[in-house]
């Protein structure tokens, strides 16, 4: 038997066949690959912003106010002479950071509460279900507005607010998966071996939730970036001193700007749309990969 083990050691594949199959499935979806490329492209551009432009996004230059795009200012300048290209790049950093950290925070919170409720059930479970129902029936934007009105305007608060509203989808998902996976035979088999509930939850059930959770993460990231933009646009998101895609666009509240200086809002607007589009396509692709019906 010993040599069998040795032979097996050699045959052990480097990459798991599951990962390989999932990768293949993902690569088959052209739109998803395109989405991933878009996301990577935008993220990289934002990260290497200092290499791409010498302008400081906050630097006011009254002598260069409202210049149309040119070779010196790729995307033109705004009303107080700041370089729009630099602002879009640096703003992207902030927007993506806010969206992603809000979504990740919400995911962590949702996974924790969801797996707790899914594992133990009981009155705590019903409590969280009611809370989730309540929070999700109030228009999210209004909730954000109230919270911003109460805790004040700052980037940290906004992320906090997103986490507070964003855990629900993940919570429902994880809880639901727990409830359905609990009935699956492989979980019962583990229980028949006497393996503890906590161990089953973390080793068997949770890994099976991760796919859908990651899909939800992409959805939330996309949603939060859109919300941040909307909030900042109406002046209630991130303080205007910090450039974000939404903040840059708030100039477009005037008809004059809309009709005469489109570069002030078209570029950040396209940046948001492009990035969110990429995230959504990517998420769609992931959903196809993780769809349990195809397992």
């Amino acid at each position, binding site marked *: 038997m010993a040599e069998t083990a040795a032979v097996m050691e050699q045959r052990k594949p480097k990459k798991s066949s599951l990962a390989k199959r999932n990768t293949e499935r993902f690569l088959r979806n052209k739109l998803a690959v395109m989405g991933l490329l878009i996301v990577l492209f935008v993220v990289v551009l934002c990260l290497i912003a200092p290499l791409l432009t010498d302008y400081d996004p906050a630097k006011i230059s009254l002598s260069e106010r409202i210049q149309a795009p040119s070779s010196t200012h790729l995307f033109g300048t705004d009303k107080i002479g700041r370089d729009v290209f630099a602002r879009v790049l640096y703003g992207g950093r902030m927007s993506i950071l806010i969206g992603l950290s809000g979504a990740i925070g919400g995911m962590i919170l949702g996974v924790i509460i969801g797996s707790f409720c899914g594992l133990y059930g009981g009155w705590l479970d019903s409590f969280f279900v009611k809370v989730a129902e309540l929070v999700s029936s109030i228009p999210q934007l*209004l909730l954000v507005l109230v919270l911003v009105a*109460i805790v004040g305007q700052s980037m940290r608060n906004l992320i906090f607010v997103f986490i507070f509203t964003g855990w629900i989808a993940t919570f429902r998902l994880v809880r639901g998966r727990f409830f359905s996976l609990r009935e699956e035979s492989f979980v019962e088999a583990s229980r028949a071996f006497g393996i503890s509930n906590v161990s089953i939850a973390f080793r068997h059930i949770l890994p099976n939730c991760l796919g859908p959770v990651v899909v939800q993460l992409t959805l939330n990231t996309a949603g939060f970036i859109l919300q941040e933009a909307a909030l900042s*646009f109406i002046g209630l998101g991130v303080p205007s001193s910090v450039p974000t895609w939404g903040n840059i666009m708030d100039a477009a509240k005037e008809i004059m700007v809309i009709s005469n200086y489109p570069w002030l809002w078209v570029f950040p607007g396209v940046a948001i749309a492009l990035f969110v589009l990429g995230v959504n396509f990517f998420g769609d692709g992931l959903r196809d990969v993780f769809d349990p019906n195809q397992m």
Partner: protein
Amino acid sequence: MLKYFFQRMLLLIPMVIVISLLAFIGLELTPGDPLTAMLSPDQMSSMTTEELDAMRESLGLNDPMLIRYGRWVINLLKGDLGISVMSGSPIKDIIKNLLPATIILTMVALVVSTLIGLILGIFAAIKQNSIVDYLSSVLGVLGISIPQFFIGILAILFFAVRLQWFPAQGRTDIGLNFWQSLKYLVLPSFSLGITLTAALMRHTRNSMLDVLNKDYVKTARAKGLPEWKVYTFHVFRNAMMPISVMILLRLPMLIGGAVVIEQVFGYAGIGNRLLTAINASDYQLVLIIILLLSIVALFASVLIDLFTAVLDPRVRLGSSKNQGGA
């Protein structure tokens, strides 16, 4: 059915109570109190701390929170919504003037986007895997990826500024001039509804395809029914159930979106007023508006829920529960 209706309605009550409580706590947490709201800064500075305290006491502001909450709710129910600090006018009047405009905007957006979303979704499902289907799925993702306000701005640029088909800003009361008011409605409701349209289209397509794979559709075809009958009576009717759930989930987003869109189009609605109130720290007004909008959203969701129940006899009649050992 009636029983189901009352059950749903009863469930609303605790929800409304909790929301109002949250709103009240929110009000408590905001800087300043009703006194600051009632008195002008000049009056405030002229009074001593003792005098202010005495006034608070006489107004019952030092009472325990629950009592004050009760008083607040009773006032609300009596129709006394308080006074807006910013404008000095009663909040009731502000709501009366502005809420209908917002509801009209959202309703138009909801109805139009539902119709368009359904039609496109059904079409995409029938022509599955065709170019039409492919294009519409790409458009569907595009629709949920572009910020609503960006679409609004683009709409202003093209349809108002360039083509001058519709006015860019403002609104007219329906009562004053019907056609004129419609003109003002087109662009905001279009921008507001487009996200829902896209999402609904994707959802409708998937739901239809789901139902199309069901055995009872095969049964319907095996009866020799023509395709149009199969689609209308057997596929669509069943596909509607998940679709209406989806509309339900999107409804709060629609109301939230209205706040932003009103800002873009300078549309004098409650959302627009909400923003000015926040900027002016008119918290009483802010919370009343949010309370109202939340209740509207809740109420609408119950209506859609009931609609789903009407569609599905299993919900309506209570499905027989068969659990337990196999």
